[in-house]
């Protein structure tokens, strides 16, 4: 028996690891690819809604039809096409979800970064954030939405305003870590102003966190919008998934026309699930501790 001899040939040269960009590595995950696909399809539906289906209005002849070739998702008690309602609802849900989320991100990031870098402001900001987080948001949103006349704009403002504290807390915690880095001292020694340090040194370090926040906050905003619309506090001039559910409940068809509740609910589920998965996977992919640097 001869001992196995390890020669140079025994070790095939390691193939040079292909330099995959972060984005393609992210998109290559099946869950991510599927989520992004769902989001893209929904975005297309939202943008091209008028080309896909007529805006549901008036009364039709086919009342309470189950799903068929003519009415893919069936019809409601007024004979309106549920598919058209869901498509047009996608528009409202995505607009409010994105706009509210952006509002929350801008507010939350500004407050979070300011709290992380300007120490005196931190105490105030933290208290406000904690109070906002402790508030029961749904009753407050209901109250506010009932006071102001409901429209897509006011809904966006209300939802966005109640969503910033979680973003602020997330950004602040990461900002605190960055603020303590010696390169922040380095920037100060080089005479950088506070504004410059926050925008040019700390902000770039929290950008990926912001991307995650946009997706997660948007999915929460979609749920809030659907909830408020279901409670009758949505924009009466815009179709939304919550409003379809509300109509089903109001007309008493909720128990007999399963298609009237199933499809808008599925739409909410898919959008929220896709946005959440895309967001959390983004976070995992960018985290070097998870992918070995």
């Amino acid at each position, binding site marked *: 028996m001869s001992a196995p001899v390890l020669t140079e040939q025994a070790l095939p040269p390691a193939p040079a690891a292909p330099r995959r960009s972060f984005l393609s590595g992210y998109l290559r995950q099946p869950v991510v690819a599927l989520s992004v696909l769902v989001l893209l399809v929904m975005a297309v539906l939202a943008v091209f809604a008028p080309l896909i289906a007529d805006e549901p209005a008036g009364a039709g002849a086919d009342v309470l039809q189950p799903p068929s070739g003519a009415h893919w998702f069936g019809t409601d008690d007024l004979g309106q096409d549920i598919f058209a309602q869901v498509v047009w609802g996608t528009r409202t849900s995505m607009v409010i979800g994105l706009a509210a989320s952006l509002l929350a991100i801008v507010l939350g990031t500004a407050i979070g970064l300011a709290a992380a870098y300007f*120490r*005196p402001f931190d105490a105030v900001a933290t208290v406000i954030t904690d109070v906002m987080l402790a508030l029961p948001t749904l009753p407050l949103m209901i109250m506010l939405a009932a006071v102001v006349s409901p429209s897509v704009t006011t809904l966006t403002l209300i939802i966005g305003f109640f969503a910033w504290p979680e973003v602020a807390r997330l950004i602040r915690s990461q900002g605190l870590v960055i603020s303590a*880095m*010696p*390169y922040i*001292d*380095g*920037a*100060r*020694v*080089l*005479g*950088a*102003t506070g504004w*410059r340090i926050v925008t*040019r*040194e700390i902000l*770039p*370090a929290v950008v990926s966190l912001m991307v995650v926040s946009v997706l997660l906050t948007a999915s929460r905003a979609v749920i809030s919008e659907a909830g408020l619309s279901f409670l009758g506090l949505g924009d009466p001039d815009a179709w939304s998934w919550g409003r379809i559910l509300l109509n089903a409940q109001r007309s008493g068809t909720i128990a007999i026309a399963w298609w009237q509740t199933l499809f808008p609910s599925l739409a909410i589920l898919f959008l929220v699930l896709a946005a959440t998965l895309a967001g959390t996977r983004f976070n995992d992919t960018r985290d070097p501790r998870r992918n070995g640097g």
Partner: protein
Amino acid sequence: MSLLEIADLKVAFPGPTGPVNAVNGVSLRIESGQTLAILGESGSGKSVTAQAVTGILDVPPATVSGSVQLRGRELLTLSRKQRERVSGEEIGMVFQDAMAALNPVFTVGHQIVEVLRVRRGMSRADARRRAVELVDRVRIPAAKDRMRDYPHQFSGGMRQRIMIALAIALEPDLLIADEPTTALDVTVQAQVMELLAEIQRDSGMGLLLITHDLGVVAEVADDVAVMYAGRIVERGTVEQIFAGPAHPYTEGLLNSMPRVDRRDEQLYAIPGAPPNPARLPAGCPFHLRCPRATDECRVVLPPLLALPADRASACHHHEEVLDATRR
């Protein structure tokens, strides 16, 4: 007029049991073209002293008192805006850990270019050219190509050179180097120190070197200030200090340095640990660890007394120490 004159500098941080006095009345002076080394162990207040000079302690919770004058201009009372103008332009700083002191998300070229554009109002092209010159000045091979690299793509020594390039980008009159070589291995340490010394010679700036490395001090410093518990305990030229220290703490430091000309079985170590700055002992802060301590030391805080030949010592028994150490 001196380049930098610090008088009775005190820095305190709030602590759970009252203020922690990190610096307790430090006075020192640096002339242009001169290197002053502040020598001391961890927690002696040497880094805090440097930070107070750069102004990065200006934010609460630190309270800074005393006087720091740069070319006769008081820095501690400057407004934030005025202070920002002094920073970088007149005082540059080299940090200990270049990996952490450079922003990891920007290329080194971008970081130097940004400083030049913001502070000097240079055009992008001019700033680029100047940045390449600076990186070349700190002897980074293929400077032009390396501008696009991120801090983590450089070796430790290279990174420290980039740090130096950034610190001298605005041609400061005073460069503060806070343990610039501690994170590097010995051969690289020597190169970086040599580079710092060379840049200082060429530019004529003053260098305030914070270190605990006696070898570095002996090599590049003109003057030495030894710090202990937030105070300067001995001050003198590097020759004076190394030939015959006038404070038992300095004596202990020198004795704890391995030497090739002596065959010691065991390396000397100063017994005990530095005192907690929140609870400094009465009398001389060093008396608990001092082999020469007497009753007087336990009660009376020795002031920093001027000795002949422009040196100073804060020891009641400095003559005794001098006699013992001057061989």
